[in-house]
């Protein structure tokens, strides 16, 4: 991280390394859906006066000398916007007022961080160290603090927690100063996550519905939901229609309940019904309880090939104790256990030791019934098939017994599953 007090006064050079002036100020612009303004330009102080140079024309900003990518004559002009903030002129040394209007402290310095090719305003420094830095005694201050065993790093307030309403007026805290101590300043990791999210969201907004739906299907559902957080409901409903029903269902399941209902009403009735049906499963049926992270092999494989496959695929699977055998149409034709596999000769075809009569449940089977099946046959997991006997997933005993066995009992049982991960 770098501080504005360290940046100002640094030499600015053109692409040939010729000194053209010094940095006087830094211009940042607030970005939608991102709490931290992003540096958009610098103010160059030269013998010819002040001039704004866009950030895009700089080869580097957070460096000992600030080189341009071009010559001063060829540098693009910068167009100021109403929302632009000049850090030195508008923010540095500014009074910060509490939520009730009382004076709290002044902005002693401003912290900048480089993320994904942008320079972002992270925190305002209101600490004593900031004052020492301004007069060039920061190192001395740190040394003394270390000797005294005191923590001098406190004093940074994340930009989220202050707001600058008018450029020529004091800044205000968004949270009472009494609560400030509990709020940590922004760090790099947080900024990266926020920025990525904001950038993704910005990118997504430029896509058409089809592209958007395809893109979303590639993303984890919980992340999908956060990406769509700022989209209007109408648009989200259109995107859901474009998506495969099961994907749409997963996405909807991640949304808050009230928004989910609203979205379903906005969707075309056919698609909505389909999704509703799937969501129905979610609540109480095998379709909702099952996981698709199981191991399935085809009938022509040998024991050795299967073990080899397990080595690769086992990592991802939720359960490798059962290996399911499917035909070309994904229909479930057999099952064998890990012990069956290990005791078999390597070259033995799996069809020779697999059990052909497989106990299974259908997508619609209710949880109580799954639990009964699991306990009756003493299974660790039960496969879920549809009307055509196609394998869709498995329900582990853990999940199946979830509702039936009181929690206190369950805790006493050995926890088989999850240990494989």
């Amino acid at each position: 991280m770098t501080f504005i007090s360290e940046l100002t006064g640094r030499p600015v050079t053109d692409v040939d390394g010729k000194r053209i002036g010094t940095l006087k100020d830094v211009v940042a612009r607030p970005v939608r859906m991102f709490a931290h303004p992003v540096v958009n330009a610098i103010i160059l102080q030269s013998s010819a006066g002040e001039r704004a140079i866009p950030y895009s024309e700089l080869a580097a900003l957070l460096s000992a000398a600030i080189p341009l990518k071009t010559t001063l004559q060829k540098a693009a002009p910068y167009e100021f916007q109403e929302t632009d903030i000049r850090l030195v002129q508008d923010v540095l040394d500014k009074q910060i007022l509490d939520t009730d209007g009382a004076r709290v402290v002044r902005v002693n310095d401003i912290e900048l961080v480089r993320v994904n090719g942008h320079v972002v305003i992270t925190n305002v420094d209101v600490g004593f160290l900031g004052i020492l830095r301004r007069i060039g005694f920061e190192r001395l201050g740190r040394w003394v603090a270390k000797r005294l065993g005191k923590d001098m790093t406190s004093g940074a307030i994340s930009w989220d927690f202050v707001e600058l309403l008018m450029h020529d007026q004091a800044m205000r805290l968004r949270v009472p100063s009494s609560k400030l101590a509990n709020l940590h300043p922004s760090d790099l990791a947080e900024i990266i996550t926020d920025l990525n999210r904001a950038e993704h969201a910005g990118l997504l907004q430029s896509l058409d519905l089809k592209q958007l739906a395809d893109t979303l299907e590639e993303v984890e559902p919980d992340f999908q939901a956060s990406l769509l957080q700022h989209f209007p409901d109408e648009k989200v409903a259109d995107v859901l229609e474009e998506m495969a029903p099961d994907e749409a269902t997963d996405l909807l399941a991640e949304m808050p309940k009230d928004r989910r209902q609203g979205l379903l009403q906005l969707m075309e009735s056919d698609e909505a019904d389909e999704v509703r049906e799937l969501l129905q499963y979610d609540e109480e049926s095998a379709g909702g309880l099952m996981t698709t992270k199981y191991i399935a092999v085809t009938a022509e494989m040998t024991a050795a090939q299967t073990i080899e496959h397990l080595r690769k695929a086992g990592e991802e699977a939720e359960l490798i104790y059962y290996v399911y055998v499917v035909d070309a149409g994904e229909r479930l034709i057999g099952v064998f256990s890990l012990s069956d596999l290990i005791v078999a000769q390597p070259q033995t075809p799996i069809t020779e030791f697999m059990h052909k009569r497989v106990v299974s449940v259908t997508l619609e089977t209710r949880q109580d019934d799954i639990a009964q099946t699991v306990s009756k046959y003493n299974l660790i997991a039960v496969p879920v098939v549809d009307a055509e006997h196609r394998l869709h997933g498995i329900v582990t005993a853990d999940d199946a017994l979830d509702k039936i066995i009181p929690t206190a009992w369950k805790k006493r049982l050995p926890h088989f599953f999850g240990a494989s991960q």
Partner: protein
Amino acid sequence: MTQGAGVPRSRPFARWARRAAILLSVFGPATITAMADNDAGGVATYSIAGATLGYPILFVLFIITPLLGITQEMGMRLTLVTRRGLADLIREKNGVPISLLIFAGLFVANLGTLTTEFAAIGTVGRMLRIPVAPFVIGTLLVAFLFITQGSYRLTQSIMLLVSLFYVTYVISAVRSRPDWGLALSNLVYPHGVRFTGEYLRSYLIIGMGVLGTTITPWGQFFISSFAFDKKMNQDTLKYSQLETYWGAFLTDFFSFFIIVATASTLFARGIILTSGEQAAEAIRPFAGELAGTLFAVGILAAAFMGLVVVPLSTAYAFSEFFGLSGSLDSDYQSSKTFYALFILQLIMAALLAAIPGISLFHFAIATQTLNAMILPLVFYYLIRLASDPRLMGAQVNTRFQTRFTAWASIFIVAASVLTVGALIFRW
């Protein structure tokens, strides 16, 4: 035809009553600042001036009054228009290093000023046969209590009340049976003595000393902070401007009587004062018991003004420079630093004054030197800020104001430097 808001033209009395009410509501900051300029150090300087130089030094008041009025008006106007204190603006426009420098200078110089206030209380206390240590501690407690527990209004009322004690100088002056004609005519041009080389040298040094105790860095900060703390705005600017000139007049009105009291008694008989506080004792044989006692009471009142106003100016400036809460209207808890700094200075100064064998004369000189060094900086920023149209809008300094104050500051600075030089190097 335009008229005052809602006031019928046919009722001039109502209009005047309304104006008087506004004037009373804004009244305070400028008068208190100006009266505090006549603190114990100020009274001492005027007493020495009168005793050493006689009536002709009165002419200096003719110069000081408009100077004080104009510089104070600028600070008042700056605060009312920008809704910020002078220290606020210096920090916001010029950053940390200069703020720290000015604050450090102000803190040390004010500590020096405070020490002289305590010394004066000590001297006068002994004269009035008051036990000094309990008196000083009592004064400290009273000041601390009403500053921390009271409100802005209470502080303002107490200070205005204390400044009424300055009337004692008028009585002392009358009792010393001066030549009023000579005194008044000396306001316009100095005359009535033999202007020897030695006399002119003293006149220069003391004249500048008088200027230096009246126009001070803390005075510039205080009027701005005190007006800010009163939460005034530019709607009443005209009335506040009127008050600054009135304050300047009033303080020098009393200065006139201090000088007259010593000039008509001590100078006339060739008695030289070595310290200002002696004046109360020295005029007694010539002006009578009452005049001497009243003069001493006046010095106590002056010292008390200084004891409150000077450390307040430091505490206000600190809060503004570093953006902390600092208002007489806030409770102790929320403005802890502000109040702590106030009492800390008082305790430090009281201890300094109590050190046996410390040369108060050298203390006064050092303080004066430091003030002379800070004053040009303060004036530079004050003029620059008040001349900035982006900040001041329609109330920006006129060209005359900028030029006049710029020249006046150069004059004041030169005066201060000369005084200090003359005193240290015995030019």
